[in-house]
């Protein structure tokens, strides 16, 4: 199993900046943690990030030739720092 560090490239592709330092709030258990620390599952037909504490799915990203499908129902919010080095 991997963690959110492995999603850095894909997330930067979507958001245009590093997102691994962003804090996600799990909609299921309320845990807040850097996206880098979430659990990553990359072998599904898409990219899945799960909460490191309760394992609930927080983020699903599926890339197709003409679009990205992003399902972020599993997080109540994402705190993106204004500054990243």
């Amino acid at each position: 199993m991997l963690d959110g560090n492995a999603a850095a490239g894909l997330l930067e592709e979507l958001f245009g900046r590093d997102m691994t330092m962003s804090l996600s709030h799990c909609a299921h258990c309320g845990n807040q943690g850097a996206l880098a620390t979430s659990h990553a599952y990359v072998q599904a037909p898409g990219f899945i990030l799960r909460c490191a504490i309760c394992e609930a799915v927080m983020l699903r990203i599926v890339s197709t030739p003409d679009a990205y499908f992003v399902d972020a129902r599993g997080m109540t919010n994402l705190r993106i720092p204004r500054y990243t080095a």
Partner: protein
Amino acid sequence: MAGAAVSGRLGGAPRQGAACPLVWQLATVTAIRPETPTVKTFTLTLPDWMPHRAGQHYDVRLTAPDGYQAQRSYSVASEPERTGEIDLTVERLEDGEVSTYLHDVLVPGDLVELRGPVGGYFVWEPGMGGPLLLVAGGSGVVPLMAMLRHRAARGARVPVRLLYSVRSPEQTIYAEELGHLDKTDPLLDVVYTYTRSQPKGWGGYARRIDRRMLDEVLATLDQMPLAYVCGPTLMVERTAEELVATGIPADRIRTERFGPTG
């Protein structure tokens, strides 16, 4: 053989102009060096090289003739002071789609499609200070090695302890270089724990990382460290939990886990 690695798999022209970590580029394999029986270091020359932060990784993508793609992330092992090229150290996983290709097929002169550097969490720069507690499990030592090489290249006087859990001396990556650093840098100590087999007369650790081991290593640092833990999931989780239990604030502990995705 050269060039075969990417034949027929490019969707668009190679990028031109300013370096951008998100654009896929074609790197040339310039050297392949065995580190252990199952680990090799690939030196890659990049047309659009840009400096990385120690601990960052590159995404490597392989494309089959039918369009099927497999992508993996590999940590940069080299220091950013080495311009124009990077080292990726890769462990061969028996069922791996990408690592087996890199190990068994790739030869110098071949091209590899990659993008990076990416990642902003598991990184260290001298400005972040220290002391550093680096904890590695197996090939988890790779991004930590980039930090050690960066620190050495910058002449940063940050005390470091590297606790490296590895099955046996034969499976130790960078053994020679780490031995040299350990001997010549008074601020740096490398502590091994050999979990499967130990050299004759070994008086050091011979078990998985545990609380007592961490306490003993931490006792050699006189300030609260910045901790970086990289290795297999279970090792990373246990180590991070134990480090929190020793009183290190969670925000001074950074983790990177990997599992067998190959």
